[in-house]
């Protein structure tokens, strides 16, 4: 009797754990699929890397990069490049599933929409982080900015800021996938939404590159964390409405 009761007690929690595990594995399968597809073609990565290099070169003509000016603008410049290049990656995220009605097949599969959304977000996140790391190295070389001294805190800011961009961007990529003016609508909708996290990330990055410690700016780190948490929850809970209805 005791064993039976114990088994009954364990059963619900075990099934909950199983659900979680299957959700996690489905999410990772989607993320793996997207990353594999990208790794085989390298379409988005190559295009966005070339695009961000062009922007960095154009900035040098637009702004006359002397050291004092760079001190003030470095964070802003860097995050603008990330935003522009990010739109290219994010635009393709759901659009690539339109060929051969792959999106319908994905929705008909046992993967829940939230898993699909999180999987795609993770894949985009990995892509964007790689892209940003390469851009940062390029930025350091071209504009003579030393960032290796603050690499730890800088990675934290990039990780938080990029998650904000990815989670909102992937949501809107799903939302605009069937629109007539998809390529234009995504930046028009996403960029104004990005104002709070980008402001925080720009201020933090500029400060870190100027040699200041992260500890003096914890308010902006909190803004980033708050934005990430709230919009991840909103995305996960509303993606059903966007994809299925």
């Amino acid at each position, binding site marked *: 009797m005791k064993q039976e009761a114990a088994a009954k007690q364990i059963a619900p929690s075990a099934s909950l754990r199983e659900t979680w595990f299957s959700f996690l594995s489905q999410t990772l399968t989607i993320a793996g699929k997207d990353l594999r597809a990208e790794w085989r073609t390298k379409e988005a990565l190559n295009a966005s890397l070339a695009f961000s290099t062009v922007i960095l070169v154009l900035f040098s003509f637009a702004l006359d990069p002397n050291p004092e000016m760079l001190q003030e603008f470095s964070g802003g410049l860097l995050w603008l490049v990330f935003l522009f290049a990010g739109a290219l990656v994010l635009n393709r995220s759901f659009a690539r599933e339109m060929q051969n009605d792959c999106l319908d097949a994905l929705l008909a599969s046992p993967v829940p929409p939230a898993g699909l959304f999180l999987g795609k977000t993770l894949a985009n996140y990995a892509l964007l982080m790689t892209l940003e790391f390469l851009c940062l190295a390029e930025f350091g070389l071209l504009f003579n900015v030393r960032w290796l001294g603050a690499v730890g805190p800088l990675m934290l800011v990039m990780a938080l800021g990029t998650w904000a961009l990815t989670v909102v961007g992937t949501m809107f990529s799903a939302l605009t996938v*069937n*629109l007539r003016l998809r390529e234009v609508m995504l930046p028009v909708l996403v960029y104004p939404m990005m104002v709070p996290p980008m402001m925080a990330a720009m201020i933090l990055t500029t400060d870190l590159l100027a040699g200041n410690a992260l500890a003096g700016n914890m308010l902006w780190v909190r803004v980033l964390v708050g934005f990430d948490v709230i919009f991840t929850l909103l995305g996960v809970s509303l993606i059903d409405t*966007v994809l299925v*209805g």
Partner: protein
Amino acid sequence: MRNRILLVLTGAFAVLITWNLKNILLNLPDEARQDAIFRILYFHAPAGMVALIGFGIGMAFSGVYLATKNLYWDTLAASTTEVSLMLGAINLVTGSIWGRQQWGVWWAWDARLTSMLVCWLIFAGYLMMRRAVEEPDTRARLSAVISVFGTVNAWFVYKVIEWTPRLQHPGPVLSFRTGGKIDHTLETPFYWMVLAYLLLGVILVMIRMRQESITREIDSLRRLAHA
């Protein structure tokens, strides 16, 4: 019945705004430092307040649409957002004029005005998106999601921008936030203007809803004629 309500509300608005304008333009004394231009406060700040309230109400209507899937609520949400966008534009234009007078430039990148501009852009995107989708159910679904994202974001923008070093605006002025720093004679007309803008918003939303129902009727008649 609806027409009668609209008529009564319009009449009330006309009386209120005439009485308010007389009070603001003729009865109030000039402000010591700003002279006559300070009166733009009564057009600028209430419009912004009502616009932000409108975005919030738009989100609530979108939430009701998501819960009921009744397209009436979607139309109501879109009309409320449209009218709020118009009030936001009044806030931006009057703010810019006041800024030119006080700070010497049309746009000083003052944090408060900038936050309204960002909110304005978010909801302008919402309306642009609605034009890009033909199918009513999809349009309603997608715009409800944007409305929720946009309103939560607007709240973020509003709070976050206060912490930047760019705030040229005065801090809180109204007495419920400062504990009675503003003179009573200057504050009362402010609340009357908030009420006037609210009334104007309700009237415009009602007119917009009537237009929508007429459009739907014409569409169904056209379909009937073709059939």
